[in-house]
């Protein structure tokens, strides 16, 4: 992707910088090492998504977290483009787990901004309804058995719902506004 095509973010105003944000983030499992990022760019260079997207840049995300650009980060839809391949985690010379940081930011976007791509809301709804993230119709369950496979168990749905409740996820999912597709 050529430099000219890359989106240049608008000028940062001093009041946007939230100096506590990096400490908030570094308390979360998977994001502990954020302060160690020295902006070498290995993560962006090796990220398969950055190769094809004009907007998604893991190094930029790391720097924005350090600067405390919380609002920009959480409202940027490109956050949903990371494929969690963990290449950046294995390649970072400083042990920063970008994929973990992106996951923390996504969880925050769901909790604080109440946004979520539609597909995940659908998967969650299916999961609460039948224990699997896909609705597996009765006919397909039957076909399994005809093909010689053991019947698919029906998970205890009370347990599943309870887990959604006690982790606070049910409330989050009920109130999210969904995003259809994310541009790349």
């Amino acid at each position, binding site marked *: 992707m050529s430099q000219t095509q890359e989106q240049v973010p608008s000028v940062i105003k001093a009041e946007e910088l939230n100096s506590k944000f990096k400490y908030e983030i570094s308390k979360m499992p998977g994001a502990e090492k954020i302060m160690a990022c020295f902006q070498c760019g290995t993560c962006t260079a090796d990220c398969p998504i950055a190769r094809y997207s004009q907007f998604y840049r893991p190094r930029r995300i790391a720097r924005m977290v350090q600067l405390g650009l919380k609002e920009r980060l959480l409202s940027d839809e490109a956050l949903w483009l990371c494929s969690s391949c963990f290449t950046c985690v294995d390649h970072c010379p400083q042990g920063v787990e970008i994929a973990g940081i992106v996951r923390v930011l996504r*969880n925050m976007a769901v909790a604080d901004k109440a946004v979520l791509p539609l597909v995940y809301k659908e998967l969650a709804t299916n999961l609460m309804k039948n224990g699997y993230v896909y609705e597996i119709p009765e006919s397909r369950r039957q076909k399994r058995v005809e093909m010689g496979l053991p019947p698919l168990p029906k998970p205890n749905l009370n347990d599943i719902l309870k887990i959604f409740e006690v982790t606070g996820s049910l409330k989050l999912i009920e109130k999210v506004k969904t995003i259809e597709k994310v541009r790349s």
Partner: protein
Amino acid sequence: MANPKYLIFTGCVIPYRLSSYEISARKVLSKLGVELMEMPDFNCCGYPMDVINHDLMLTLAARNLCIAEKEGLNIMTLCNGCFCSLNETNKALKEDRKLREKINGYLKEVGMEFKGTIEVKHLIYVLSEDLGYEKIKSAVVKPLSKLKVAQHSGCHVVRPAKYVGRDDPENPHTLKNLIRLTGAECLDYVDEAECCGNPIIGVNEEVPFSMAKEKLDHIRAAGAQALITICPFCHIMFDLNQPRIERAFNEKYGLPVLHYTQLLGLAMGFTPEELAVNELRVKPLEILNLIR
């Protein structure tokens, strides 16, 4: 040595769309002497929920782990995604006392407790570590020596290295070794270790299609007659979505994509019908003729 015994964890996507993987895996493993027990009352591994709430993913995964602990058996997954969430959760909860206490607080509400008494393995590690290459080799009765294939191991079976701790994520060789046991040649190609793109297909199609197309180009350039996968998501990307990728880029690949268990099954003398080869989207007619 006693035969290896595992709870088989199919996850959601295999029963939903890829019975061919489960059918071939069960046939091949039972012939090799791996005893497979059914996982009672399991739920989604939790992986797709990590984007919403990390604790939700951990607790859903841990519920499955608790069921296995009660059965007193280790888990074998067929899917890289299930391996990722179950293995990571298992290791994180074993190592981090505070996290374990937190997740056990949630599990208490469903009458369960994570104790940390079992292991989670992906199919390819059951094959390479529990059975070993010699034993698999001796089960090959029809070496596929006319076949040239390429492998796509996928990400989560090797990454992040911190949790998997097996194979080399930059140059994965376990699947290659397993392929060579069948007599087939396993070709190298550019960027073999790269992601298939499937995890984000629900939010954006252009990027994953471009990623998969680039891999298909490299595999074709290497001269492979088929691609071998070990994950249902990677498989869907390259097999089920191949016609859509072809349309999007005005290309024609016609590259058959087989589950490793189908390739091994053919070499072990199973018929294509027994391995549900007819369920594949891209029909592997040429290679079936070649090995007949």
